[in-house]
């Protein structure tokens, strides 16, 4: 059931992938927790869109379930959970940053270039299935690395959760780009794991807030050497 023909589908996928990259850069550049979660929701929505496009453009029906799941879980359920956490702990803004915004953006740019060089062998390996892999795959690796960088540079616990989920989004996108998504059972298993991980981290944020009455990860320094 292909509504779109291949080239226009590919164009839309490129646009969506670029949009996802922009959301990742926005997360790095902002300071407000609520804004993080909103950006993450948008990113997941775009990701769902890319999945839908792959379904409609290339007729890979088994991705449909994964796309729907992405939209429902990552775009709706998890953001709601995070918002409730932020309301309960009443901390809105990330006050000081370990690495200031400009330097972070420079580093993210470097990561995009590095991601592209990693993707080199995969891109020109002769067994590439579909044409869009060449462009979207480096973007997915970049998002993954940026997710990791977010976790490394920010101090708030919620931000770390968002960073982790951004990495997961990057992975899902890379799965989509080079192999039209993993086998269905594996996709569902991955989604289920990510959901449980997010819930557990949420519970921990509540406990940290209760015992340390702050969610600054920097305070967690008692266990050394």
């Amino acid at each position, binding site marked *: 059931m292909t509504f779109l023909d291949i080239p226009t589908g590919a164009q839309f996928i490129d646009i969506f992938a670029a949009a996802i990259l922009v959301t990742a850069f926005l997360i790095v550049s902002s300071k407000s927790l609520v804004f993080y979660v909103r950006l993450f929701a948008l990113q997941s929505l775009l990701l769902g869109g890319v999945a839908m496009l792959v379904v409609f453009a290339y007729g890979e029906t088994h991705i449909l379930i994964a796309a729907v799941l992405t939209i429902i879980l990552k775009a709706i359920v998890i953001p709601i959970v995070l918002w409730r956490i932020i309301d309960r702990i009443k901390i809105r803004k990330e006050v000081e940053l370990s690495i200031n915004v400009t330097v972070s953006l420079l580093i993210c740019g470097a990561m995009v270039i590095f991601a592209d060089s*990693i993707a080199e*062998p*995969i891109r020109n*390996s*002769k*067994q*590439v*299935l579909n044409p869009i892999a060449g462009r979207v795959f480096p973007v997915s*690796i970049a998002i*993954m690395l940026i997710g*990791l960088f977010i*976790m490394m540079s920010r101090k708030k*616990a919620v931000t*770390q959760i968002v960073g*982790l989920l951004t*990495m*997961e989004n990057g*992975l899902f996108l*890379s*799965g989509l780009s*080079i*192999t*039209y998504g*993993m*086998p*269905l*059972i*594996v996709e569902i*298993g*991955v989604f*289920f*794991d990510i959901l*449980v*991980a997010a819930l*557990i*981290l949420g519970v*921990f944020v509540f*406990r*940290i807030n209760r*015992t*340390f009455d702050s969610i600054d*990860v920097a305070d*967690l320094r*008692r*266990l050394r*050497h």
Partner: protein
Amino acid sequence: MFSVLLGIPLIGAVVCGVNTKRRILEVATIATGVIALATSLWIARTVSEQSTLTSPKGLLFVDALSAFVIIIVAGSFLATALYSPEYLGRQVQLGTVSQKQLRLYYGLLNIFLFTMLFVLVSNNLGFLWIGTESTTLATAFLVAFYEKESSLEAAWKYVIICSVGIALALFGVILTYFASSSVVGSSANALHWTVLMSVAKKLDPSVLRIAFIFVLVGFGTKAGLAPMHTWKPDAYGEAPAPVSGLMAAGLVNVALYSILRFYILVHKALGDAYASDLLLALSLFSMVLAVPFMLVQKDFKRLLSYSSVEHVGIITFAIGLATPLAYVGALLHMLNNSIAKLLLFFSTGSMRGVYNTKIIRRVSGAMHVMPVTATVFILAVFAVTGWPPFGLFVSELTILSAGFGSGNIWMSVFFIGVITTIFLGFFYYASGMVWGEPYRKQEPAESDTMTQLLLVALLLLLLILGVAMPSGVSDFIQKAAKVIEG
């Protein structure tokens, strides 16, 4: 066969989830442990006859290697199940642990066993990844079992770092899937281990190289290879002793099993020494990194966790040597190391219960306070640092003779230097704890007979593996080593 193996822990978890009486929880968990061990031995026997065992739909698969690790995991679980009642019983009396928490503890323990066994029987590398991720989730609340600040911090670090590691591993799996789907076509069984092995030669080498790096960093984080080991001292230090024992004995082997699966695939596909050189580099680094932390240390549980980092390094070093003899040494070391770690964590757990501290300085004269546990502890320390009558000397010697035989002499000499230095640090602290006058006139408080029996039994097992290795075990290890050679 598989249904029994995977079903039992689930049933155990459900039973523990439902009722709260301590006696039933303990019996259920021990029963699960016994049946799991029995099934694993049964599987091992069948596998030793007809080399592999696959489920009808091909999703679950057991060969000699996975059967061997299943036995270790099931055995460690049974030991933990036998040790937990006394350890937690003491804590319940002190009031630090409530009845509801007990239910959570035993429930999660069974789920933890389920996830580990799930990893070991899955044929699909995707399922292998899912299983490893779920082990992290199952143990998250076990590490954060005590409501203290430090255990919460340890749990947070544990989950975050392991999730990041596992995410990287997922990327590795995706790349492997990409490489295999372009050869086998993107069907469901492209990630099946059996399929991958049959088509290994035709996979694209450059993709596999990058995939192996991500997998190594990912599962290396779970195993505790340096520099991804940073979560281990915090998690093992803060978790209850039985849990850290089970993690050090079971979970480490599961992570190493996953690395082994990918190592076999990549080693067969690339044919050159790329994969083993990577392993050698990381293993030497993690051995060296463990040394300073064991020479200067204040907390004896962190001391044991760094010993675990060192022994993971030793096993990966053995695998990295890439000769049949070295593989035998690696598997043997897996078995010996698990038993030694159980012994160490359980004996120090009892000491921590009696002295109520983790600081080494505040524990002394254990020989007077708890003679049996102290004797077992000091002998276990001798065992874990590779003294002869025990099994670890045998496995380390096999690894070394493989190292010297295969020509990389200087690395093996470096290896000997590391284990000697670690012995000095480890023994300095251990002898300080065991000999001398009891700290602040601690009156004798020996743990109950079941724990003593368990400790002595494990010690005897280690002694038997050292002095008179039963032929059945060594034949099975030979078969498992054949699997690694591909």
